[in-house]
């Protein structure tokens, strides 16, 4: 029996020029996990025009300050990471839940799967969350994560990064990404960073160091803006203005 109505099927690589492909063989983990069939392109129904709303979530100050989650302070360079969460139309996204996680200053995650021979820091868990304000702004206090080795290929090292999770205005805008630090010498060797093929898009994953955000005698300031939008190849619905 043939389907009554057939939807367009598209290669995942044509979804957006910004995103990496599902299958990027240099990143070995994709080989057995990347979906290989073309994706089914659905029109946006109410299911796709909606998504979770977390604006009223109660969070504590230490949720956004990873240096104050224990009795003592973690070792490493104290930094702030702040910026705005925006729609692709430039509008600030308010009340957005932003979740982050990272390695400690020595390049070790507080996770039993991480067996890297670098010390854990009893004063650093590495997880944080906050909500964006009325202008779409968020801010975290943390320490600069270390680079660390991984098993992808001989002498493989991940550039310093912080994982970011965001929701956007509707389910299709959900994004998990990684924020990198400017000038990292490991960029040319990292298949995860290079899975993003477009150079302009690569730059959008790299934070900017800003002296204006740097607090004298206290912490270096990095800016990282995140832009969220539908990942569809072609808009199928008229623009909503709400």
């Amino acid at each position, binding site marked *: 029996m043939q*389907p*009554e109505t057939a939807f367009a099927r598209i290669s995942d690589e044509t979804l*957006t020029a*910004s*995103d*990496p492909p*599902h299958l*990027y063989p240099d*990143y070995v983990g994709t*080989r*057995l*996990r*990347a*979906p*290989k*069939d073309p994706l*089914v*392109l*659905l*029109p*946006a129904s*109410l*299911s*796709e*025009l*909606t*998504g*979770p*709303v977390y604006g009223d979530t109660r969070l504590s100050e230490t949720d956004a300050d990873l240096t104050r989650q224990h009795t003592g302070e973690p070792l490493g360079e104290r930094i702030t990471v702040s910026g705005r969460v*925006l729609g*692709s*139309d*430039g509008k600030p996204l308010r009340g957005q*839940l932003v979740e982050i*996680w990272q*390695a400690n200053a020595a390049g070790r*995650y507080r*996770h039993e799967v991480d067996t890297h021979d670098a010390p854990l820091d009893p004063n650093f868990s590495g*997880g944080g969350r906050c909500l964006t304000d009325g202008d779409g702004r968020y801010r975290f206090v943390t320490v600069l994560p270390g680079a660390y080795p991984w098993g992808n290929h001989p002498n493989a090292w991940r550039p310093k990064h912080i*994982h970011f*999770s965001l929701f956007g205005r*509707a*389910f*299709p805008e*959900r*994004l*998990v*990404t990684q924020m990198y630090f400017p000038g990292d010498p490991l960029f040319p060797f990292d298949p*995860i*960073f290079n899975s993003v093929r*477009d150079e*302009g*898009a690569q730059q*959008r994953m790299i934070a900017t160091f800003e002296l204006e955000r740097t607090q004298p005698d206290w912490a270096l300031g990095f800016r990282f803006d*995140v*832009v*969220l939008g539908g990942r*569809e*190849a072609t808009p199928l619905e008229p623009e909503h203005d*709400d």
Partner: protein
Amino acid sequence: MTELGLTPSQTVGPYLRIGLFGGPISNRLLDESDPRAIRVSGVLLDGAGEPVTDGMVEIWQANAAGRYAHPADDRTEIELEDGFTGFGRSSTEDSGSFEFVTVKPGRVPWPDGRLQAPHLLVGVFARGLLKRAATRMYFPDEEAANAEDPVLLGLEPVERAMLIAYGNGSLRFDIVLQGDRPTIFFAA
């Protein structure tokens, strides 16, 4: 209008639990003692048929009456339920298994006004997935609604079958990233 470039997706990696669990989001969308509570579980499988033990599955759904807890669903004649966000998140760290306690959603409209069968939107994240894989789950005890669902009608029968959970009471829904009979994934 100038469109800003989107921030690219990157993998969640294997350490997602540090940032994504223990916060406001869990796999219990409503209290287990609620008489309407249903359990949905399954296994996330890779192309070798092995369970993915470091991933995460998220779901998004309407409430039992068929309304999404989001301002774009302005059908105020259908009531929202206090405390029901419609969103849940389960790790697959327990042998590749994920599990949700939730409620069967009501039917929501398709853009042309037809009704969709009750369904969950499902998002899959894991080490080795550079971006989310998105699919849908349908309910086995909704044969009539499934038979007229605009999404299911647009798929091949074998693809359709992969999207319908099975089991009585406690539902089972496996997600196959690669293989002879992979789960069908959607662009939206």
